[in-house]
């Protein structure tokens, strides 16, 4: 709650309690920033430590809590990166998202980390592991989520948790493509976690479940559209829709090869107006000029 400075501020016990609860809820973020962050994050974490000590989000140690109860606490900058990202507590979802993105973009996971590992032990520091993953430019994976992923592959012998077994992680991700040693057991069924993730239907391909009457309406509409397309030989819908897709999702996405189709050839970049004009010119018998 924000109050104007010109108006007198009435500090109710409920407001003080709410401020204390808010500061308490933010304290894990600040504590994380102070313990593991460095540089600009370390500075914020240090300020947060004093606020956690006073319990009300106040950045001036020793000041009365009531004077600053209206101040909106500043969250850790890394917390804002969690917006639209997977929650850091969802370890399985994070790994599934990483596997799917690496598979879709055909990244060889070992190449992300191999250059860091000078001694070829298959182990990197946490910082190197995070930098390797960050080089892949994964979407929707916050630094906190990367921490969770690193914790899963941490070396158990290292009590500090700073040694990450990147080779094990890369081998798990590579199982999305294939598994080693298939020539010895050609009938082996690929049922690893990574393979399960990439063979599952894409979330985008799952159509919503509708009420029976709504599903019937959709079916009627589709039947009418298909009938009309067949009757009047309407060919231009696909090319026009593709020309509206400026980011070329149909080209870079993984849906086509997962459907078992080859990638479609690039359609001509024509707008609907150009398509209409060209069809009119064709019907009028015009030829040439790039046609």
């Amino acid at each position: 709650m924000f109050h104007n400075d010109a108006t007198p501020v009435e500090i109710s016990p409920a407001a003080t309690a709410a401020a204390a609860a808010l500061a308490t809820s933010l304290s894990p973020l600040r504590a994380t920033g102070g313990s593991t962050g460095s540089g600009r994050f370390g500075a914020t974490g240090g300020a947060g430590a004093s606020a956690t000590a006073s319990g009300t989000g106040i950045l001036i140690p020793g000041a009365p809590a009531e004077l600053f109860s209206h101040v909106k606490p500043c969250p850790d900058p890394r917390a804002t990166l969690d917006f639209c990202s997977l929650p850091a507590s969802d370890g399985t979802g994070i790994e599934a998202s990483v596997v799917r993105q690496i598979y879709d973009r055909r990244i060889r996971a070992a190449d992300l980390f191999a250059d860091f590992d000078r001694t070829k032990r298959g182990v990197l520091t946490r910082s190197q592991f995070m930098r390797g993953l960050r080089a892949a430019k994964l979407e929707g994976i916050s630094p906190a989520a990367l921490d969770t992923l690193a914790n899963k592959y941490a070396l158990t012998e290292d009590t500090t948790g700073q040694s990450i077994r990147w080779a094990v992680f890369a081998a798990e991700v590579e199982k999305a493509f294939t598994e080693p040693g298939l020539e010895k057991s050609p009938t082996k069924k690929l049922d690893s976690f990574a393979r399960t993730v990439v063979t599952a239907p894409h979330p985008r391909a799952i159509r919503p479940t509708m009420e029976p009457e709504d599903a019937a309406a959709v079916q009627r509409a589709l039947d009418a559209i298909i009938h009309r397309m067949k009757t009047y030989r309407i060919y231009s819908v696909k090319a026009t829709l593709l020309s509206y897709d400026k980011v070329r999702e149909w080209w870079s996405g993984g849906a086509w090869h997962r459907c078992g189709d080859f990638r479609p050839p690039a359609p001509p970049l024509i707008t609907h107006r150009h398509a209409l004009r060209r069809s009119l010119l064709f019907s009028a018998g015009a030829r040439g000029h790039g046609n």
Partner: protein
Amino acid sequence: MVTETQFLRVLAAVDLVPHRDDERRCLLDYFRGTGIKAHMIDYRAFLAAVDGAVP
């Protein structure tokens, strides 16, 4: 993904928009994207649904 307006514009150009309001609404809801793309239409799913209509 294309916007709802673009999708309807393409269909309207060749008179493929369902005339009944409920059919039009259900058609858009059925091919709507998920997550942050909920305001857009997954035209690839539509093309897959009408695939084979024309050779």
